[in-house]
């Protein structure tokens, strides 16, 4: 079984307050610390676990991004992915969700896969549109919000998180699966894994090598436009007090003042 996992580097959600460049109107990704998307760490771990259960299978990490994205891919390799493909090209800057999916789908088409794994949504852009769009480009069914996945013969079966519980759903392979964030514990790379990662195959692809035109991707291909960037309305500063034993009274007074009791 060939499992392709789509992953990307994002500004570290634990240390960065996301900023927008007023000129390009894009998220600032330079001068901030970048990490493999924590959601994707969970997703790649799900793929590795499935590969090890199935046997005779391979996990390929796929990313579209600037050269710095290779750090995230190295981490995926250290976690246990077998090889990595990075699509990197200056024309890709400013891609929208549609273009991102177009590029990733072209690479998946070229490589061939039985299963494509994505996270339900990324931590930085979080449109959640890329996985479904990849499925549509490839004409495949999409099994979304999986918190468990099983493969039986030529079928994939998932437990899909829904607002009231979960549903068990199945489709034929190949299929695109999205992993609900946090459903799988992230594998922590070992020293041996980190050393081994350096020897694993790492391929780079350009837009032209995928047979795509520069006008179909990046800023040029984007079907949305940011007109203006403004400041979010800040919440009025509240009152912060240290508990001196009267916290319960204080909160109750507050609730009463605003007729919440």
């Amino acid at each position, binding site marked *: 079984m060939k499992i392709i996992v789509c992953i990307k580097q994002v500004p570290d959600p634990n240390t960065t307050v996301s900023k927008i460049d007023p000129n390009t109107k894009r998220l600032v990704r330079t001068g901030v610390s970048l990490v493999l998307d924590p959601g994707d760490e969970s997703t790649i771990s799900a793929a590795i676990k499935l590969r090890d259960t199935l046997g005779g299978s391979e996990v390929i990490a796929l990313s579209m991004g600037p050269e710095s994205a290779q750090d995230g891919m190295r981490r995926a390799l250290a976690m246990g992915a077998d090889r990595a493909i990075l699509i990197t090209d200056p024309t890709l800057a400013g891609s929208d969700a549609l273009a991102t999916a177009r590029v990733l789908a072209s690479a998946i088409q070229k490589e061939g896969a039985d299963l494509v794994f994505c996270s339900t949504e990324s931590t930085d852009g979080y449109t959640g549109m890329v996985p479904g769009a990849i499925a549509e480009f490839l004409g495949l069914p999409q099994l979304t919000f999986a918190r468990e996945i099983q493969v039986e013969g030529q079928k994939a079966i998932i437990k899909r998180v829904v607002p009231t519980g979960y549903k068990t759903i199945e489709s034929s392979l190949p299929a695109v699966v999205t992993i609900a964030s946090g459903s799988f514990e992230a594998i922590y790379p070992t020293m041996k894994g980190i050393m081994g990662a350096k020897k694993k195959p790492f391929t780079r692809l350009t837009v032209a090598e995928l047979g795509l035109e520069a006008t179909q991707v990046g800023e040029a291909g984007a079907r949305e436009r940011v007109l203006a960037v403004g400041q979010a309305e800040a919440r009025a500063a*509240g009152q912060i007090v240290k508990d001196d034993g009267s916290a319960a009274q204080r909160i109750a007074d507050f609730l009463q003042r605003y007729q919440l009791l």
Partner: protein
Amino acid sequence: MSNIIWVLVELENGQPVRSTLEVLGKAAKLGRAEAIVLGAGAAAIAPTLGAYGAEKVYAHDDATYDNYLTLPAVETLSTLINEHQPRLLLLATTYDLRDIAARLMVRNNLGLITDATDLAFEGEEIRVTVPWGGENVVTATHPYQGPGIVLTRPKAFSIEQFEGRTPEIETLNGGFSAEAQAIKVIDSVEVASEGPALEDASVIVSGGRGLGKAENYHLVEELAAALGGAPGATRAIVDAGWLPYSYQIGQTGKTVKPTLYVAAGISGAIQHLAGMKGAKYIVAINKDENAPIFSVADLGIVGDALTILPQLTAEVKRRKA
């Protein structure tokens, strides 16, 4: 260009879900709202949608959609979009509608803007307000001719009433391709939760990892019960298995907009804030005076949630008595 705005009305147990009615009301204020209803019972529901703003309803009464909405809905909508060229498809951000939007974006080559909190026409141009991160808000648009999609942030709008509005109804017929039925639902499991649903609760008391262990979560439930509200949680403690996913509030959980939100032992990560900072009043209890949750709190208590929660529950009961 037309000012026709389409809203896909999602059904649950044969009834329209609240989030899609909220979006329908917004559409009716912006232009000519037209609703699409797909699933068993669609024909019966169609006329009732006038009261929520629909001037026209496309109804396809077919149980195929109830099994698995995404693929059959994409097929139907894609054909309708080509035929009628609405100005905009306005969708609530729900599990299924998100999946549907992603495929339609590709199939019909549509521009798509997600996470909108507001939108308006300025002349011919549609202007969409989208918060980006904690600090910024951007105005975006679809610069091209033809339909576009906007997905709206949960709870951005409230339900509107349009008394006496009777929609024109167009009944859809026809079957589905084999591809549209590629996904089978094998079974469906409901995880029961007690008290008011989080989405509807006017008071929510939430707990995080600061509670120390699962056995302490009852302190949150007891305060929620005393206040007549619902208990919620951060992803950290849902992932740790203390509670089912249905309790999770935040970017990848539920978006809530209660009058009062009490956060106990919650750090206030941006992904958690995304789901709750629309609350009218926020009270936070955290041991760490630098916890980011305090930046959104109207009242912040630097202290131990394990001692304060039971004291507060007792105090609330005393004052209510």
